[in-house]
């Protein structure tokens, strides 16, 4: 029985993507991913029914609930389901004990995570924007783009967190609640280091809103891309030398 073993090339492995998609949506975790955007769009419909077309209310809903809460939570749920849970029960060993580049594994999983962000984050955000302000499609477009970019950055950060610690979900939540949420609302300086603020700057650029002051667009874009790249690199490097057993 001789088999020819080809090296697995290419940045994305279809097998890992398939496994990731099945793991996320074949289980109940997929249901939770539906609930968040449903709540967002539901609220948008309700507010539209109450208020009509109002810029301030629209911003309040799509920014406060959508960009600041739903998008990072979708990213957290997706990434933790793809990486943290496999590390937790050790099944990632089956992916790692293969002659597949760790970068390939990470980027394949991120493809699934980004797909979830697109389907359960960016698209519902665009829908909510259209429901609330059908007269200004740039509003919906701005939030759609910002959700995509911000969500990608969040996915990269959370996947790096997942390979660093067993308590990735809790720490990710603390980061969201305290850094992005509490402190971000209180201290203006946080905007230089906050993914939500960077993606808000993208909305400001596309939809001419004023969600965040005094943050250059180039900085925001570079920061988003930079965090994404660093997150992917950090995750892959950590997976290259990964202690599965031993450090109990």
């Amino acid at each position, binding site marked *: 029985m001789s088999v020819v073993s080809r090296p697995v090339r290419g940045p994305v492995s279809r097998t890992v993507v398939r496994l990731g998609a099945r793991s996320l949506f074949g289980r109940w*975790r997929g249901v*939770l991913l539906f609930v*968040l955007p449903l*709540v967002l769009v539901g*609220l948008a419909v*309700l*507010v539209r029914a*109450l*208020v009509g077309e109002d810029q301030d*209310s629209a911003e*309040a*809903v799509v920014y*406060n*609930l959508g960009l600041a*809460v*739903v998008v990072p*939570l979708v990213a*957290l*749920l997706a990434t*933790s389901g793809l990486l*943290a*849970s496999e590390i*937790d029960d050790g099944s990632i060993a089956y992916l790692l004990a293969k002659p597949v580049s760790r970068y390939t594994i990470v980027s394949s999983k991120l493809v699934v995570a980004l797909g979830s962000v697109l389907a359960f984050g960016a698209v519902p955000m665009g829908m909510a924007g259209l429901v609330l302000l059908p007269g200004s499609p740039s509003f919906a477009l701005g939030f759609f783009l910002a959700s995509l970019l911000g969500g990608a950055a969040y996915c990269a950060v959370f996947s790096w967190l997942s390979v660093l610690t*067993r*308590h*990735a*979900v*809790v720490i*990710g*939540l603390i980061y969201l*609640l305290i850094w992005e949420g*509490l402190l971000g609302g209180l201290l203006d300086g946080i905007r230089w280091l906050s993914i939500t603020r960077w993606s808000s700057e993208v909305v400001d650029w596309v939809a001419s809103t004023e969600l965040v002051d005094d943050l250059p667009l180039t900085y925001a874009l570079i920061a988003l891309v930079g965090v994404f790249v660093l997150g992917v690199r950090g995750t892959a490097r950590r997976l290259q030398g990964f202690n599965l057993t031993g450090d109990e």
Partner: protein
Amino acid sequence: MSSPSEPAEPARAPTGVIHDLGYRPYAGPRLGERAVAWSFFLTGLRNTFGLGRSGRSKVLPMGLFGVMLLPALILVGVLVQAKDLLGLDAQIVPYSTYPLTTQLLISVFVAAQAPVLISRDLRFRTITLYLARPMRRTVYVLVRLASLAAGTFVLIASPLLLMYAGGLLADLPVGRETTRFFGAVVGAALLAVLLAGLAALVSALTVRRGMAVAAVIVVLLVSYTVVASIQGISVATGNETVGEVAGIFSPYTLVNGVQHYLFDSPRATPAPPSSDAMGLLYVAAVVVMAGGSVVALIARYRRVSP
């Protein structure tokens, strides 16, 4: 093990004896299910604050407890010292509003400790040991829920007690403060029961600790944000009723509304119940939610195989 050798003369009876120092079964009185449930409740309550467990598990609950007390301490300090200076004649933050202001801490506490009480037994299957004891399954569930609710109640009510003591120290009218404090304590109890029920239900369904914590926080956070947004918008546009109904969907606003209706506490939400019908709806919602989570929890545990 051989017995000590007997003396050579057959006339002398053997005087050796073997002392049974081995296993002894327990033959004393056994307390009934009630005592078992009570001690189980106490253990659960202690575990909620990390007592009786490792040092690391004390950090979060004790830390949160301290941080909950801190603002109350500051408020009391200001009240006592600067009462005449600032012309204060009541608590700076009303008793009933305090839990709403510190809701993040309360949410984190209940989200972190519910899995400790509920998910651990289910995930690592130690529940089979509990079910093999005189305590019945429903009693186990109710006692666990009670421990969690009691622990949460301690967390919510302690700063209120501190504020009450500070109020008495600052010579605020005793009768008025006591009635207000009493109303706030009732509210704290209701809030504790609602939060504990919700968190316990989520923890029993999720079983994995990290996900349970995340899910509870998400539910509490998102529900409050949505409700607050709806209430804000509904008040601004004049549809208060919508806002009042929305207030049912977050435990914090629900309990605050009930306190406003029953005890005439100052409101902390934009749209508290303004009519008797709405107030009764709020009270009914509390009962339904509390009862519903208990029923759902018992149903969930019925599916657990020993």
